[in-house]
């Protein structure tokens, strides 16, 4: 499965300066592991010490919030778009 992962500017540095990256995997966990293999440290930016998605990071597969569909075990269909969305800042 190949998916497109879109990242906020705040994570750009952890994946070599881009905000859009292709990755493979059948679940979100596999997709993040694939990115982490190429960009070590990526997973630890968005996952907490227990290995779950950080409480202030929202991950969407298509239009659905992954938190409501199994978290990291959420299936990612071939060609889908994954978005990693941080909290908002400033007023």
């Amino acid at each position, binding site marked *: 499965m190949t998916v497109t992962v879109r990242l906020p500017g705040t994570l750009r540095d952890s994946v070599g300066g881009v905000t859009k990256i292709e990755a493979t995997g059948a679940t979100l966990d596999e997709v993040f592991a694939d990115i982490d293999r190429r960009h070590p440290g990526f997973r630890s930016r968005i996952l907490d010490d227990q290995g779950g998605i950080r409480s202030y990071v929202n991950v969407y597969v298509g239009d659905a919030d992954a938190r409501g569909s199994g978290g990291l075990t959420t299936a990612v269909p071939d060609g889908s778009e994954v978005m990693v969305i941080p909290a908002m800042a400033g*007023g």
Partner: protein
Amino acid sequence: MKDRAALWMVIDAEDRLDLAGKTLLDATSGNTGVALALVGAVRGHPVELCMPDKISVERRRIAAAFGARITLTDPLAGSDGAILAAREKAGDAAYVYLDQYSNPANPLAHALTTGPELWEQTGGRITHLVAGVGTSGTVVGVSRALRPRGVRIIAAQPDDALHGIEGWKHMATAIRPAIWDESLADEHRAVSTDDAMAMARRLAREEGIFSGPSGGGALSAAVAVAREHQGVVVALLADGGERYLATPMWE
């Protein structure tokens, strides 16, 4: 807190401009948006807010309940994306762009109300003031009122560009508000999201105060200050926990 800045910005616009037929516009992460929508409803001005999509469901709905029109912007571009969208719209003469990040009426509200009230309510005993920096209106305004009276001002920021302290800005990586002047703070402290959220939970369970992540962050920094210094340390909590019920924070 945000209602003050919103009210002062709207009154200032009424004083300086003819607002007939105009729509008040701003970019917001939500809390100032709710305040502007409320003030606009009461004073009879249409309000339009640029807010990132996919987040802030509660604040978006409250603002809409007050009659504000919401324009959703790219969620990945965050608050800065909302600011850029508002700047683009502001070119249209139908809008009056309040621009809370650049509007001097925002800190002025706190220089004339929040600061003097803190002085009065502590009977002049306040020695340290701790507040988070978002637009920076609170820190800048309160500093102008209280620093001349010897109060030390501590500005708190998130410790990382990727953080969950909604409303706070990681200045090093975000669009810098024009009103921000770091020299108005005596000290700058970084707070982690985990510490902010843990303190917000503690505040609810031990003190019965239901705050959002930025309130927890301000108190977390204030507790650190109080451990190091003697005096009367005041922390400003600018958001309520109810506005974050749809987030995992309270699960």
